[in-house]
């Protein structure tokens, strides 16, 4: 915990570069969230933000663990990560199979992902930001057309195949019109407020038994149902073999002025 506090102090004193490397500026816009509370789909406005071009890799996460030994597999406390944390690595500071270096890091908890992003001077994207960014049409995917419908279909096809023992490298699936890679089709990704779909009383969420047939923007968006069901099944210390993350960053005030 001390480390975390020290890290956050460090970020505040860091100078933010105008165009963070490895990140893409996502132009804001109007977005219809998948989960709806009222009778009609409501829209929300998303401001500009930066988002990592691709998910954080095993090699990148190794640098973080080297710099922050408390996040080593043998050091992390069970409050911050369950016992499967980084279990696909060969050791505390050893990714194991070199083919995995450029694959997205998985088996990491929300706390670990959050700490990584802070260490980089960033933060996790909000669910709204992530969904907004991921909804952009593919500009290149196996030569297919770029319609929204097609995006949904390619997601379903990915879910239909079991995950290989070594995940494919980042930037291996498709790029979308924002210039982001693998928003679907490679791994699930943590978002900052993943647990906000749970009601405050801790009772059942929107997707059980009634099954989300009410209260969503699009009943045929099966891929979105899957993402939200996964988020609902998570707790912040959980780790999953197909769950990784990428980081986001606010646009610095002077950048907004420039715009």
């Amino acid at each position, binding site marked *: 915990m001390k480390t975390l506090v020290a890290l956050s102090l460090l970020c505040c004193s860091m100078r933010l570069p105008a165009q963070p490397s490895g990140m893409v500026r996502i132009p804001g816009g109007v977005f219809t969230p998948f989960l709806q509370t009222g009778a009609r789909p409501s829209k929300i406005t998303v401001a500009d933000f930066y988002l990592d071009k691709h998910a954080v890799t095993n090699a990148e996460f190794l640098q973080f663990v080297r710099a922050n030994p408390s996040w080593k597999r043998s050091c992390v406390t069970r409050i911050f990560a369950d016992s499967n944390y980084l279990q696909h690595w060969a050791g505390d500071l050893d990714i194991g199979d070199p083919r995995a270096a450029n694959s997205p890091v998985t088996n990491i908890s929300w706390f670990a992902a959050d700490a990584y992003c802070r260490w980089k001077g960033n933060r996790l994207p909000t669910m709204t930001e992530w969904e907004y960014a991921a909804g952009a049409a593919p500009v290149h995917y196996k030569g297919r057309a770029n319609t929204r419908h097609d995006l949904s279909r390619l997601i*379903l096809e990915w879910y239909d195949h079991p995950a290989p023992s070594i995940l494919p490298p980042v930037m291996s699936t498709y790029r979308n019109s924002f210039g982001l890679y693998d928003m679907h089709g490679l791994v699930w990704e943590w978002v900052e407020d993943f647990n906000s779909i749970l009601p405050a009383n801790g*009772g*059942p969420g929107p997707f*059980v038994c009634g*099954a989300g047939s009410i209260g969503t923007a699009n009943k045929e968006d099966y891929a979105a149902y899957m993402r939200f069901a*996964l988020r609902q099944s998570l707790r912040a210390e*959980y780790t999953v073999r197909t769950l990784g993350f990428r980081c986001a960053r606010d646009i610095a005030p002077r950048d907004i002025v420039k715009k």
Partner: protein
Amino acid sequence: MKKAHNPQRFRPGAAGHAFITLATVVFLSAGCNDAVAPANFLTDTTSAFGEYNAELAHAPSVPPAPTFGHPEKVIVHLEVVEKVMQLADGVNYTYWTFGGSVPGPMIRVTAGDEVEMHLSNDPNNKMPHNIDLHAVCGPGGGAEATLTVPGHTSIFSFRALKPGLYVYHCATAPVGMHIANGMYGMILVDPKEGYPAVDKEFYLMQGEFYTKGKNGQPGLQPFDMDKAIKEQPEYVVFNGSVGGATGTHALRAKVGDRIRIFVGNGGPNLVSSFHIIGQIFDRVYEEGGNEVHENIQTTVIPAGGSAIVEFTCREPGVYSIVDHSIFRAFNKGALAQLVVTGPADKTVYSGKIKDELFQPGNPVAQSDEETAGPPAPDLPEEVRYKSGHQLFDMNCSACHQNSGLGMPGAIPPLAKSDFLMNRSDKGIGVLLNGIDGEAISVNGKPFQGVMPNLHLSDQQIADILTYVRNSWGNKSPVIQEKEVRKIRNQ
């Protein structure tokens, strides 16, 4: 089928337990003699006496009936596995399963039992999953308590309050897709007094699959959401795949066996018209509940529902079990088989007695048998081959395949088959009589020979054998009707 359980098998310290059991029996008898007191001192929620791990069974097997006579705590471990398996010949599908099979294993408990469910989600799975058991009275049927991320286990418990045959399924959004991918099975809650004893119990479950490719299109087929929403499946099957309950997976019984089939319908969409061709159900527990109807030909099984059917086979044969919404059986795979062996009873079923010419307007029918008719003319090989090809496609290719290669392990090949080509009767006897469950060897591989008597005419048999014995690398002289007739009359 009903086996007496040895309590010691499940519980150490059974001696003390036996005493409690005895006390219960005494209590119960006292209760029965008292008109005012309730007939049973054990209320719905009486505490469990002991605990044991449930013995699960994969279809078509059924777990043994529990016979404790008092509530037990039953611990059930179910693991969710996402895996590629065969949906039809040459067609694969990524199934989402309970316990690695479709349907998931059957759970069997007794009314009043406390059931502790442990639902584990394999770490290699991509999806969160949960379980909704229709035997549960509580929100979501357990779904709310069991939403489980890959690599975790959820535990909850419930009281099996009402006897019956219940479906369980995954209820994680999108629910339809989780069910369409195979996430269903059955939990049987025996009445406290048990079901009446029978000789054979089986577990069958229908479900349909919505693949992107049309029926029969080979390769790994993805789920097709549009077809699922339109409720237009490419496959309707029993026990998870085309052939999931036929051939080597067929149900097997003997003449005279009292048979009980626990039938479920996972859906996700279609209602089944469950029927066994050539049988009448003596008793049907309608929708898996207490109501028993007698002498039923076809019983409706709703999606997410069940039926228990009971009957006794009087006559040997291969019986087709179908969804009598019949195009599903004929074109989409909704076919299972019950193979009954044993002595025939001609007072119940004669088989075909004779074949007569029918000439409308002429009251005197002419017999087509050898004694009455002139000898059939010999025909050239190409004529018989052409007709035989058509007859083969209609009568034989569904099992033996157009390639003549059969299905490994289930249906023997005809192509270069030593069994066929080396026979002195050239295979005529097999087509005339069928094969009734005898073990045969084809090209060194064992098969459980089950081929129905198709009641073909001499001409049809001559044509089919001429085609079969001259295709796929086979070579032999034309077969004429007189050869068939000779063997038929032997």
